[in-house]
């Protein structure tokens, strides 16, 4: 690697970018699904669900049938999503209180939830709410309810931290959000399934090799390409 290349290594696109990760995940959202999308990259999944699939988005503050962002005329401070951003309601939407909203989540009625991650373990444990730092203000929101109650949990995450440390580890070192809850991980480098035998790499981002991913993963991956 030349000096010039390495000095710009942080900005050179390797693997999938954020949009492409969301797009890849969206391919796995089935027609007719009830879906809850976490804040950040997961929100982008809605833009990429393939044409012809009808998907209903749930936002846990009390709306089933969340639409796109409002125009300035449509904007209503009483109509927001779980990230407290203004949204719209589709034709056929419904409003409900928090008890019912979380009964949808905790009662296994939501099909898919897409979330971000700080760490994922080999057994599908998820840590995404706290680094456990003593001076941090702890805040959990609905993350623990979602992972405990939604049938399928998809994770979209950068494969490593900003400093290059593995986020996919034998055990999470941060406080857990839930144990054994993750079904599939969409990283910038690969798609990885959590199976009873371990983590199975099922797909690589363009130009990425199995070994490249393995070097950046804290556990031994099963090659299921």
């Amino acid at each position, binding site marked *: 690697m030349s000096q010039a290349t390495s000095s710009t290594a942080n900005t050179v696109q390797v693997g999938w970018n954020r949009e492409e990760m969301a797009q890849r995940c969206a391919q796995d959202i089935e027609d007719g699904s009830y879906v809850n999308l976490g804040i950040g990259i997961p929100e982008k999944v809605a833009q990429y669900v393939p044409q012809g699939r009808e998907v209903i988005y749930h*936002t*846990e503050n*009390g709306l089933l049938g969340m639409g796109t962002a409002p125009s300035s005329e449509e904007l209503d401070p009483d109509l927001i999503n779980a990230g407290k951003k203004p949204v719209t309601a589709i034709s056929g939407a419904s409003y409900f209180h928090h*008890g019912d909203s979380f009964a949808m989540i*905790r009662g296994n009625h939501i099909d898919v939830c897409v979330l971000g991650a700080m760490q994922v373990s080999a057994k599908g444990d998820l840590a995404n709410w706290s680094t456990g730092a003593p001076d941090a203000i702890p805040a*959990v929101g*609905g993350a623990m309810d979602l992972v*405990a109650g939604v049938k399928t949990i998809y994770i979209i995450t950068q494969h490593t931290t900003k400093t290059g440390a593995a986020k996919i580890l034998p055990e999470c070192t941060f406080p857990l959000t839930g144990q054994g809850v993750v079904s599939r991980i969409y990283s910038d480098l690969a798609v990885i399934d959590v199976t009873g035998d371990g983590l199975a790499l099922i797909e690589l981002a363009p130009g990425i090799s199995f070994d490249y991913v393995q070097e950046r993963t804290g556990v031994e991956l099963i090659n299921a390409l």
Partner: protein
Amino acid sequence: MIDKRVASCASAVAKIKDGDTVMIGGFGEAGSPIELIHALIDHGATNLTVINNNTGSGRVGLAALIENGRVAKMICSYPRTANSLVFPELYRSGKIELELVPQGTLAERIRAGGAGVPAFFTKTSVGTPLADGKEQRNFDGEDYVMERGLKADFALIKAKQADRYGNLVFNKTARNFAPIMAMAAATTLVQANEMVELGDIDPENVVTPGIFVNEVIEVSNPQQESKLVKEGVIYPAPVELITNQGDK
């Protein structure tokens, strides 16, 4: 005759005592009963335990109640939001207690409290620090954590419409915690954008039946929290500002 209408937020909150537990509706600003909260600040009750999903925003509403030292303990799921300045500072300096509860567990604890259920088991938080010290049981091969129902002395909530029986309708996602808080509080105080006649709300469309409501105040043009925060409004207005205005 049943007539739950009262004239002012001030008279409604006057019954709240030092040390009471108060549920306050709202998810962020949506559904936050800001006029009732400001009346509670004016009333002066202190050492309160407040149950809300968040800790308010800017220096108005719930954040102002906290900033004015009236809240000894918060029970909430997400105390850290954009523009939440007051709570983090007090928490770090040990001046306010926090009971952190997963959002769905918080909702279910409130619903249970309102339905006379003292405790229940849930999968949420199993294997996490938030399950520490809580009783666990295995049902049908799965582990569950025991959580207690939550009750309150008062609930302060906001509705879109109310009638004199206390039947309520809400606006969009501003509904959030209000219906379950109305059930879980001994006394529920409601600020409604519009007071309507009995029968104007189709019985099929009543969201909160009046049995869960004690007092209703019409606040026809409620303030919008985000607008106040953007304008840098502080509640109550600092004394020097009031003096300056008096000098003019």
